[in-house]
Each structure stands twice: as C-alpha cells, then as structure tokens.
C-alpha cells in the first residue's frame, strides 16, 4: 500500500516540476518521469498489459515531444498569463478539487473493486468464463479483441485518423490554383 503513496507523490511532484519549470526540455523529461512512474504503478496494480503499453508508448511519446522542443530557438519561457486570470482559475480548480474529494467517498474503498459487489457485473463473467468464451488466456486480450472488439476497431481508427491528420497538417503545400474548366 505504501508503494502506491510513494509512487503517486513522486508523480505529483514530477507533474508540479513539469508544469512550473522554465526550461521546456526539462519539462518534457519530467513528463517522462510521470509516465514511467505511472508504468511502475500499473505494474504494482496488477496490470502488466497496461504497464508494457505505457512504457513503449511513453518512449515514443517522449521522442515526439522532444522532437517538438529541441532545436527551437527560445525554449526558455517568460512568465504566465495575467495574474488576475491565474488567481481566478486556480480558485475554480481548487473548488472543483475540494468538491471532487467528497466524491470519492461514494466509491467502494481502494482495493475492493466494484464488480465484486454488483450482482451482474460484466467483469465477473470475463474472469469466470473468459477462457472458455474466447480461448484467450490473457483476459485483457479477450476483452479488447472479443467481448469489446468494436471498441478496439474505434481505437485503431483513432490512431489511423490521427496519423492521416498529422500527415495532412505537415504537408508543405496546401492550396493550389484551380484550373478553370471553361476558360
């Protein structure tokens, strides 16, 4: 249990540094720290699938982020937006945060998942019948590719869309002259 607190504190501190540091490159590196801290956390939360995916996605995401920051001439930043706006937004965020803390009391306490308490939760079926229903020993693979395969189609589509979008945004010439049909 203590390990979760340590890791989460580590992630929160890394996040604060990432937000507040003036140097963009160190900020990006702190994001990497959050991501790898998250991957460790996933591992301790018995989610090895997510841990692997998080690590490899983090590596690639960091490369993409560093790609954006490196070789840009002024990576050092100058201050925040207007002071007044900042105070207002911090106050709003604080209110949401305080409201949110109350909310977590309605969830089952940490360590006792909801599906064990609801009579007909789908997760119970996945665990009991997953192997016979789908044949996959990795229940997560069974869920994402069989029970909820339609979600995964959407997810693959999101990636496809994003990459087509990125190549569209990065093309060098976007407009051309319209060749007039009858002139």
């Amino acid at each position, binding site marked *: 249990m203590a390990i979760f607190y340590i890791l989460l504190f580590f*992630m929160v501190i890394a996040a604060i540094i990432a937000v507040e540091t003036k140097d963009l490159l160190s*900020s990006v590196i702190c994001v990497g720290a959050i991501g790898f801290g998250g991957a460790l956390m*996933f591992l301790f939360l018995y*989610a090895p699938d*997510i841990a692997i995916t998080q690590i490899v996605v983090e590596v690639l995401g960091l490369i993409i*982020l560093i790609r954006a920051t490196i070789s840009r001439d002024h990576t050092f930043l100058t201050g925040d937006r207007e002071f007044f706006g900042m105070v207002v937004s911090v106050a709003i965020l604080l209110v949401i945060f305080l409201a949110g803390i109350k909310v977590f009391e309605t969830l089952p306490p940490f360590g006792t998942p909801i599906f064990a308490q609801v009579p007909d939760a789908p997760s119970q079926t996945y*665990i009991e019948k*997953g192997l*016979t229903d789908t044949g996959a020993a990795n229940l997560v693979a069974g869920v994402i590719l069989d029970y909820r395969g339609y979600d995964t189609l959407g997810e693959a589509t999101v*990636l496809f869309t994003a990459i087509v979008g990125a190549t569209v945004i990065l093309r060098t010439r976007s407009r051309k002259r319209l060749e007039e049909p009858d002139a």
Partner: protein
Amino acid sequence: MLYALCLLLFMIGLYCAVVKKNLVKIVIGLAIMEYAVNLFLIMLGYRAGGTAPIIGRGDLQAGAERITAHFINSAVDPLPQALVLTAIVISLGSLALLISICIRIYDKYGTFDITEIRRLRG
C-alpha cells in the same frame, strides 16, 4: 486518499492546460490529465492481494480446463484495463496530431507563445 492524489494530478494538468501560455506546456498539461484518468481507471479495478488477469498454467484445475476458485476470487478487474489500453492509444494519437500542429504553428509564427499567436479575434 489515493483517489484524491489522482484527482490532484488531474487538476495540475488542467491548471497547466488552462493557465500556461506556451504551446508545448499546454500539450504537457493535457498529457498529465490523461495519465491521471488512466491511473484512476486502473485503481478502480485493483483488488488488494490480487493477481493479474492473466491465466497461467497454475490457475487451471488439473485435468479439466477449469479455472480455480482462487483465481476467480483474486483476479483484478480486466475491464478497466481494456478501457485504459484504448485510452492510452487514443492519447498517443492525439499527442502526435497536437505536436504536428504545434510544429506547424512554430514554422508559421516563429514562436510557441500563445499570446503572440493572435490572428483571430475573440
């Protein structure tokens, strides 16, 4: 309490996305928000003293292809893990698109500072 720390992480990300004026900082804020939500979803499925939702040889009863009661009573929730897998890939895709827009903006305007990127009124 762990949930609250997770929400704190979410709020730090939101703060960064709303208040900061550097494009890359805004992207970083969005990324932090997504980490926080993913972590929260996985924590919802955690079972104290549980096992990963992957069936090994030891979880099958000898002879028959039946899963042991121990596994059924200790496996963590596989559904949030499936959701988070989806969410991670979605956030990677949007990160790639966002960064390409950022790079293109830098190319056009020569700056990452959002206060200098004001062609549009309002």
